[in-house]
């Protein structure tokens, strides 16, 4: 940990973002192996894990940028990033947004294990008697708990987004196939949207295009 309190706080920040990922990763993989969901959702949830990790990395980067604001000079960055290599390693997690990298899921777990080992190290020091201060481990475990929830939230958010996008794609596909144009804002005969529409619905079909609200009467 070093004697610098500032360094310790930075380390806690990294633990808060990344240390919970390994547990969430293996937990979700374990659950998806043992549960069968509709339409192969288990595989999809597993596939978004590296993206969830990238999302966490982006949030971490955001926090660092916020901390640096408004002085983004090299001197300030050097001053702020006391554990340079660890900080760079943490920021590198945004690379998992790149599909080519996120395909190799094991890379994300290897990346996050570095931070989990920091918790493991403090636990070992406590057991080995190198550290008499139990508060360090107590802090670690609190932050670790936060990290687990944060990572779980990231996976949940991405899973929901994935589900919504998939649903929308499906409905688009379905509408194209069945001719139901409701997703485009089309008004079908019998569907009275305004009084004037009601007057003409027996003769006309009004089509409203959502991108420019232009209307077409058929």
């Amino acid at each position, binding site marked *: 940990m070093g004697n610098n309190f500032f360094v310790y706080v930075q380390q806690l920040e990294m633990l808060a973002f990344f240390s919970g990922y*390994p*547990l969430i990763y*293996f*937990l979700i*993989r*374990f659950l998806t*192996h043992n549960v069968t969901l509709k339409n192969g959702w288990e595989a999809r949830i597993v596939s978004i894990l590296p993206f969830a990790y990238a999302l966490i990395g982006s949030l971490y980067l955001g926090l660092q940028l916020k901390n640096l604001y408004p002085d983004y000079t090299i001197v300030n960055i050097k001053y702020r990033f006391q554990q340079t290599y660890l900080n760079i390693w943490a920021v590198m997690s945004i690379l998992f947004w790149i599909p080519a990298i996120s395909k190799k899921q094991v890379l994300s777990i290897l990346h996050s294990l570095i931070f*989990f080992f920091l*918790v*493991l190290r403090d*636990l070992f020091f*406590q*057991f080995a008697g190198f550290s008499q201060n*139990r*508060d360090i*481990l*107590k802090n*670690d*475990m609190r932050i*670790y708990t936060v990290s687990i929830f944060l990572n779980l939230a990231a996976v949940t958010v991405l899973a929901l987004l994935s589900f919504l996008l998939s649903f929308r794609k499906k409905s688009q596909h379905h509408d194209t196939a069945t001719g139901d144009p409701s997703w485009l804002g089309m008004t079908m005969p019998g569907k009275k949207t305004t009084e004037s529409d009601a007057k003409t619905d027996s003769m006309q079909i009004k089509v409203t295009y959502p991108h420019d609200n232009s209307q077409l009467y058929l």
Partner: protein
Amino acid sequence: MKQRSEKILLALLVIISITGYITSCTHENQVLPPPATNTPVINRGSGVFLPGTLTVGDTSQWKFDQVHCSVLWSGNYLGAAGLLTGRFNAFGISSISTAQKMQYVTSGQPLKDTSWAFYENDPTKTYFNGYVQMNTSNTGEPGRDGGCYLGYVSAPKIISGTQNLIDSNIAVIKTTQVVLDPNSPGYIVTMVLTWKGLLAAPHDTTINGTLSYVKRETVGAGTASAYDVFGLQLNFTFNCRSFGMTTTEISDAITVQCNMNFNNK
């Protein structure tokens, strides 16, 4: 095989996490249960301490250990600033009869320190009669102690090798009542302070003070020379203007602390 390794890794992570939580659990943030009562718990023993005849070697007789005791006084310098403090070099626990108010050519205690009794659990039987020799005040400034101070308190000069117990040189306390303090393990003492000061004759004033008991302990336990000690501390405040003191060098209120130690050697 891959799935099995993942299961093992998951189990490992869970075990490490649980171990971390258990190890870090210190219970330090647990809210303590409220006290059963707001009244302080006071446990008084049943010790009885009497001077007897001061027979050396009689462990039932308690001797006043004057050389390890002190009578300290303090008052605000100029009545406004910090404390001006001093101590009396000569004092004792003895009542002084009219006939005994004289000068004694001795370097030791002029009277036997036997005018006291302390009952830990029965304060009605507790009493003290004590005195100080006013001209033995020691503030650490010999020029002041043997000079202007003597004028401020109207005390005679020190005669080397003489203990002076005449009226103009002694301030005496005599307890009239000792009761248990309901809020502490100590006692509340009512006493009469008698001092001539700058008045024509000795003046009596009734004051209250607090008395605390320092529990009996054995010194050198397990050895042939083991003996017991206990202590008493008396605190009180009086108004020096009641005794004709007019100097503005010190505040009206003078606080006195008597630290008394006893042994049964």
